[in-house]
C-alpha cells in the first residue's frame, strides 16, 4: 500500500507528513513530529492519555487514522503553555492534580475542552467531562480541585 501526504495545523503551525493512511494520529504526533507530550496508555480509546483537540473537539488520537486528520487543526499539550503556564496547568501543579504525570497531558486537554464549552462547571459536570480520562495515581479528587481552580483564574 502507498503512503499519503497529510497536512495538519498543529498548535498553530503547519505540518506535512508522509505516512500510511491508517497510521494512528497518535503515532504521527509522537513519531513523525516528535510531539511526545501526547501519550499512549491503552491503544483502545479507554484511558484518554492520548486525548488531543481536533477541529475544536476532544478526541482520542489513538483512534483517529491519519487520513481523517488531513486538513485538521489540532491542539496538543505542547500548544497549551504560551510559554507561560496556562492557569489550568498551574492549578494541576498546585492542587496535586498530577502525580506520575502520564495521564496529565490528556487530562489537561480534556479539562481545557470542558472549560471551553462550560467555563464554570459544577463538580458533576467536571466528573462527566473527564469520565473518559483514567488516572490511577490521584483518585481524581485533586484533579477536580485543579479544574475548579483553573476555571476561576
Amino acid at each position, binding site marked *: *500500500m502507498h503512503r499519503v501526504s497529510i497536512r495538519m495545523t498543529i498548535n498553530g503551525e503547519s505540518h506535512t507528513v508522509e505516512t*500510511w493512511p491508517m497510521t494512528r494520529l497518535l503515532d504521527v504526533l509522537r513519531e513523525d513530529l516528535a510531539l511526545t507530550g501526547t501519550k499512549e496508555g491503552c491503544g483502545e480509546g479507554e484511558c484518554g492519555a492520548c486525548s488531543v483537540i481536533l477541529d475544536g*473537539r476532544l478526541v482520542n488520537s489513538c483512534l483517529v487514522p491519519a487520513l481523517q486528520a488531513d486538513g485538521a487543526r489540532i491542539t496538543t499539550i505542547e500548544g497549551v503553555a504560551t510559554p507561560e503556564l496556562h492557569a489550568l496547568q498551574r492549578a494541576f501543579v498546585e492542587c496535586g492534580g498530577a502525580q506520575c504525570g502520564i495521564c496529565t497531558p490528556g487530562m489537561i486537554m480534556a479539562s481545557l475542552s470542558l472549560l471551553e464549552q462550560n467555563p464554570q462547571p459544577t463538580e458533576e459536570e467536571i466528573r462527566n467531562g473527564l*469520565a*473518559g480520562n483514567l488516572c490511577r495515581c490521584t483518585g481524581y479528587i485533586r484533579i477536580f480541585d485543579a479544574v475548579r481552580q483553573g476555571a476561576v483564574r
Partner: protein
Amino acid sequence: MRSNVAAFEMRAPRSLGEVLDLMAAEPGAWRPFAGGTDLMVLFEAGKLDHRRYLSIWQLGELRGISATPEAVTLGSLTTYTDVLRHETLSREFPLLAEAARNTGGIATQNRGTLGGNIVNGSPAADTPPALLVYDAELELVSARGMRRLPYREFHTGYKQMQLAPDELLARIHLRRDTARFRQYYRKVGTRRAQAISKVCLAGLMDQAGDEVRIALASVAPVPLRCVRTEAAIVEGRDPLASLAAEISPIDDIRSVAAYRSRVAQNLLREFLYGG
C-alpha cells in the same frame, strides 16, 4: 499496535456518489469507515480482518439533523455529541439522548456515530434499544438507488444485517409521535461511565397502557425488540416471565446469563411499576 499498518488502505472520496460507485464496482472490496471508535479498537488489537476502507467521515451529505412537523431525520454520521446538543432530540427523543450520554466518554461521543453504532451490529450497542422503541426507519443508499427499512427488521442475527455489500446507511428517520409516551432508558454497565452494557432496557408506554414498546441490549444476538413481552403486558399476562422467555442472554467476559436475565426483569419491573 498489533496490525501491520502498511498492509491497510484507506481513501477519503470527496462525495457520497464517489463512495457508492467504488462500493458498487467491487462489492465487498471496500468497507465504510466513519468515526473509527469501533474499527480502530479492532485494528489496534490486530483483529481487523478487512484491509480496504473508504473514509466517510468527511461526507457532508451524511451529516446534519433536520426536522419537519412529522419527523426528525438524522444523517448517519450524527455523533453522540450532535445528539446531545440538539434541543428537539433531547426533548422529544430523550432515550436517544440518554443513550448518547451513556456512551463512552466525551472523546468517544465526539467521534462515534449513530450509523457506526447501528452497522457495527453489536448486541450491546447503546443507541439501538432507543431506536427500536422509537420505531426508527433506516434509509440505505447504493449506486442502485435508495430504500427505506424499519430498523426493527435490520438486524437478522449476530453481526448479520439487512445491508448489501454495496450499501451504506445514510439516514435515520424518527417519527415525532413520542409525546404521548412515558419513556424509560436504563443501562447497566460495569461502572458509572465508559462501560459496555451488561443489560440495557428502553421502554415506551402510553398513558392508557394500550401501547407499550420494550427493547433491550445485551440479552440476545441482536438488539432486541421484545414483541411477545409487549403483548403480554397489554393482555395482562405476567410480563416478567414473558421477558425471561423472550431473551437469551449468555455468559461472557463481562457478566453471566443469570444476572442479565434477572436484571432485565428488574428493569422491566421498574419501568412498569416504578421499581
